[in-house]
Every structure is written in structure tokens, then in C-alpha cells.
């Protein structure tokens, strides 16, 4: 066994925590062991069985093909489409995302990220109210009161509490967990709720009303409130309001519990106002628990390139943004797209059934390291190297902090960025050939 190399302080590319203290042992070009990562991170870094060769569907069956054939076929599909959808992007590097924006411009397509089935509503809420936030280290060093609203970090962001929130220690929070009040507001008692000091159970779809009640209580106008709101007792909400006002530094972390429920972005809109109101009494910040490790980066890249963080329609040559019209689920749900490129995502699994079914009626190109249900409906499948493990690049943490992803091991497969660059090259060649008539 050749001697192993220990990569220290590598960045984990699974969830929005983007933990950067991961140690990875590599020997014989393979990852042998992962230390400090949680179960999600180590499963990502250790990896799973991979697709190795490109495939193109012929006579209804996916058959092996060369990379060049796959690039060419992908280019043909995208060029022929009147409104291709370029979807995913959240689990690859910013460098690949930048090429994705260029591709969307070249083919006059719509580029959208997995945010539209995740924290898309949070973005729309921020467009209404702004985001009073901070970096995770500010919470670690100062927060004595933390609210987890509609999120379950114990299962979705396992190291969040130790590195950044409940159990973290900093300059003004030396006691760590003991010096903090942890509150969970959710429709069910999750494992995160079981560790909390206070659990407020509310009825599904009632987040907006409960937040409005809290805002009234925080503003001292509680007398208008009836005895229960959204399944929560007024007394519990009043106690919670007082606890929040008594904080020295409060932080609200919110998740898909409020973005996926009735009200969608209005829930976040109201939560942002609650935190803004609380700043008249004490210091409060709020932060979305972003799921995929680089959905934040996709939003940043799209914003500085097109002016908008998701759902950007380049069909008419200039970016146009309107979730509800230009989001992936709208286009597929209304059969308003005639080809799809899926990068580092699995919409066939993660979209509503009828939306996913629309993908079976149009040509689909998939770029992904792993086979998944989207592969079953794909016409061109291009296996790729894994960003953050086999390709270096940039990713943005849930608090918007940019970090450098390491390359831990080599891969014989091209990275997302390289694949998209090849597809763009083919598109330009095909276009020249068509225009030149040569």
C-alpha cells in the first residue's frame, strides 16, 4: 500500500454548512477515510458507484457513446429548441455555473436553479423586504437566543449546531449551549425540537398568521390577538415574544417548513419583517438554511451575470425574471419548454410527479456523476467528475461566504465546466455551419 496523503481542512460539498475542517485520507488515488464530516458529508466524499461512459438514446434505448458524440448531440438538441430549460446548478462549482449562464445566452434558454423547489420563496421574500443577516461566525460569537423555524438541522445540517449555532462557543458565548436559549417552531416534534429549550407546535400552513401574532406581541399590541393562533396558544406566543426581546443577540434560522407551505414567500416576507421589528428592541438576524452546498453560489453567479438570482429567461436575448412564469416547475408544468439540460440535479425525483412527467415528452440532456431517475428519462447522459472532490472551484455557504473547493483525487472524467464549454463550442460550430451554409 503506497503511503497515504492526508488532505487537511478540505471543504465538504454536501450541504449549505460547507464545513471546511474536513480531513481526507487519500491512497492509491482513492479516498480511504473521511474525518470530521457528518454522515451526509462522508457519504458524499466517499462517493457511490458512478456512471462512466456517455450514453445517447437510440430507438428508445440509452446506448454507450463517445464524449464528442454526446457533446454534439446535446448541442443539436439545445440549438433546435425554441425555449430550452437549463436546470439544476446547485451541486456544482461557480465556475461551471458561469459557463451555464453563457450557454443560456447562446441558446436563448431559461436558466434556473434548484432554489425554485427549495428557498426560491425566500428569494422572493428578500425582494420584498431585504435580508437582515450576518455570517455564521457572528452567530457563533454572539447569539444567546436561536430560533429554528420550520427546519430540522439535526437531520439536514448535522454539524450546524456544533460549528455555528446551538452548541458553538465564541468570544461572547464561552458557555456554548448552556448559555443559550434554543427555540423550535414546527408542525411536528423533530429531533431538533427534542433538543430545544422551547418547542412551539403550530398547525401546517399557519406560519404567516403566527408570525403576524408574534409581530403584534413584540410591538406591545398583543391585546388584539385571540387566544389561539395557528394552533399555538397566545400565552406561548407571548412568552416567546418576550424571550426574543430579552435576547442580547438573536438569530432566526428558517427552512423548507415555511417555503414549501401555504403562503410560500409571504411567510418569509413576514419573518423578515418580524426580525426587522425585533431590531427596534435588540440585535436580531435571520438566515435561510440553504440545502445544496452551492445553491447559494448559483444565486450569486446568476445575480452578478444577469441581475437576478434564479429563473432567468434569456429567450429574447436579455435576462427576464419572473418566478411563477420563468421557473422550471412553471415551464414544465405548462409544457412551455421543448428541451432540458439537467446539471447536477434530479428533477424527476424532486419535482411533483406531473411536472417530472413533462420531461418524458421533451429531449433531456443530463450531466451528473450518478445514475438517478432523471437518467431514466434522459436522451443524452454525460457522466462528469465531482466538483469539490475531483475538481476544484468555488462554492458559497448558506450565509453567502465564498470558499475554495479542493480537488482531492483525480478523475478520468471531465468536470461540469469543461463539458458545458465543449457543448458551447459545438453550438458555435453548428451555428456557423448553418449560417455559412458550408
Amino acid at each position, binding site marked *: 500500500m503506497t503511503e497515504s496523503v492526508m488532505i487537511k481542512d478540505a471543504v465538504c460539498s454536501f450541504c449549505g454548512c460547507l464545513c471546511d475542517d474536513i480531513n481526507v485520507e487519500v491512497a492509491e488515488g482513492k479516498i480511504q477515510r473521511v474525518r470530521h464530516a457528518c454522515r451526509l458529508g462522508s457519504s458524499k466524499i466517499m462517493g457511490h458507484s458512478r456512471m462512466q461512459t456517455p450514453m445517447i438514446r437510440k430507438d428508445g434505448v440509452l446506448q454507450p457513446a463517445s464524449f464528442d458524440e454526446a457533446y454534439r448531440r446535446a448541442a443539436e438538441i439545445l440549438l433546435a429548441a425554441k425555449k430550452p430549460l437549463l436546470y439544476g446548478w446547485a451541486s456544482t462549482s461557480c465556475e461551471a455555473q458561469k459557463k451555464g449562464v453563457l450557454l443560456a445566452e447562446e441558446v436563448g434558454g431559461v436558466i434556473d436553479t434548484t432554489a425554485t423547489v427549495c428557498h426560491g420563496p425566500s428569494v422572493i421574500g428578500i425582494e420584498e423586504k431585504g435580508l437582515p443577516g450576518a455570517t455564521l461566525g457572528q452567530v457563533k460569537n454572539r447569539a444567546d437566543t436561536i430560533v429554528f423555524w420550520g427546519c430540522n438541522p439535526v437531520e439536514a445540517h448535522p454539524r450546524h449546531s456544533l460549528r455555528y449555532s446551538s452548541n458553538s462557543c465564541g468570544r461572547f458565548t464561552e458557555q456554548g449551549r448552556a448559555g443559550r436559549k434554543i427555540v423550535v417552531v414546527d408542525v411536528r416534534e423533530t429531533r431538533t425540537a427534542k433538543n430545544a429549550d422551547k418547542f412551539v407546535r403550530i398547525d*401546517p400552513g399557519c406560519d404567516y398568521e403566527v408570525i403576524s401574532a408574534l409581530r403584534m406581541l413584540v410591538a406591545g399590541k398583543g391585546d388584539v390577538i385571540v387566544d389561539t393562533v395557528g394552533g399555538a396558544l397566545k400565552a406561548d406566543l407571548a412568552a416567546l415574544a418576550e424571550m426574543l426581546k430579552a435576547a442580547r443577540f438573536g438569530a432566526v434560522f428558517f427552512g423548507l417548513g415555511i417555503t414549501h407551505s401555504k403562503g410560500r414567500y409571504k411567510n418569509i416576507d413576514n419573518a423578515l419583517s418580524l426580525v426587522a421589528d425585533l431590531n427596534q428592541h435588540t440585535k436580531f438576524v435571520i438566515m435561510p438554511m440553504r440545502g445544496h452546498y452551492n445553491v447559494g453560489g448559483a444565486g450569486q453567479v446568476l445575480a452578478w451575470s444577469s441581475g437576478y438570482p434564479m429563473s432567468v429567461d434569456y429567450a429574447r436575448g436579455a435576462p427576464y425574471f419572473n418566478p411563477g412564469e420563468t*421557473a422550471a416547475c412553471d415551464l414544465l408544468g405548462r409544457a412551455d419548454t421543448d428541451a432540458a439540460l439537467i446539471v447536477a440535479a434530479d428533477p424527476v425525483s*424532486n419535482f411533483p410527479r406531473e411536472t417530472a412527467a413533462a420531461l418524458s415528452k421533451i429531449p433531456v440532456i443530463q450531466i451528473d456523476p450518478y445514475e438517478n431517475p432523471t437518467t431514466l428519462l434522459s436522451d443524452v447522459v454525460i457522466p462528469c467528475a465531482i466538483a469539490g472532490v475531483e475538481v476544484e472551484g468555488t462554492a458559497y455557504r448558506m450565509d453567502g461566504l465564498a470558499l475554495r473547493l479542493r480537488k482531492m483525487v483525480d478523475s478520468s472524467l471531465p468536470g461540469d465546466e469543461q463539458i458545458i464549454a465543449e457543448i458551447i463550442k459545438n453550438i458555435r460550430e453548428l451555428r456557423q455551419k448553418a449560417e455559412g451554409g458550408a
Partner: protein
Amino acid sequence: MLATMISGRTLAQGARCESKMAPEFFKAAALCHLSENDIKELNINEGENVLLKSEFGQVVLAAKADSGLPQGMVFIPMGPWANMLVGKDTGGCGTPQFKGVAVDVAATDSPVRSIRDLFSDLGA
């Protein structure tokens, strides 16, 4: 039995979501969490199958007891099985309503469909 369905991340589902075609993902995601009382009301044992129907579709899943759930609420790990019950409408903001879906739950002895079978009717 009428109930409200919510879908979401679990640790096991997350650890397997990049190898969805493997049996471990099936075990982690093809589940329906119910409160103890609801399991009693359906008079089934944990591990037996339930049929869930919503306005948009239906799916068969193995029942799992979850003490954190209130009566009348079921939880399904996010993924293809849960999304059989979710509607395509996004209410004008691009995001489907993955949580708070009205469902009817009944005991069944139909089998839980494998992930490949789930998509077989889509020409997969």
C-alpha cells in the same frame, strides 16, 4: 382516514440521495411516518403498507411510527414517492406546495413500487 402530508429531509434519505437507484435509498425514502394513534386507527402494524391518495396522485408506502407527529399528520421523506402526491401548481411563485397536502390514508396489501417501476409508465 384524512390527514395532512408533509415531505422533508431525513438523515438516512440525505445520505443516500446521490445513489437513488440503490436499495438503501428505497429503504430510506419509501416510507410513510405516522403517529402511533393513526397507526392504531388504521389497525396495521409498523412496517405494513399504507395507500395514500391526494388530489394529484397516489402511492403505496411502508408505515413507520413517529412519536413526533401529531395525529392527522403524515411525513414522507422528500423524493419520488412523496412527490407522487404533490400537485404541479406553484401558486404563481415557481415553487410547488410540498407540505400541507390533503391526503386519504388507508391500509393496503399492495406492494411498494421500486424506483424504476415508479417511472416505468413514463417510458423509462
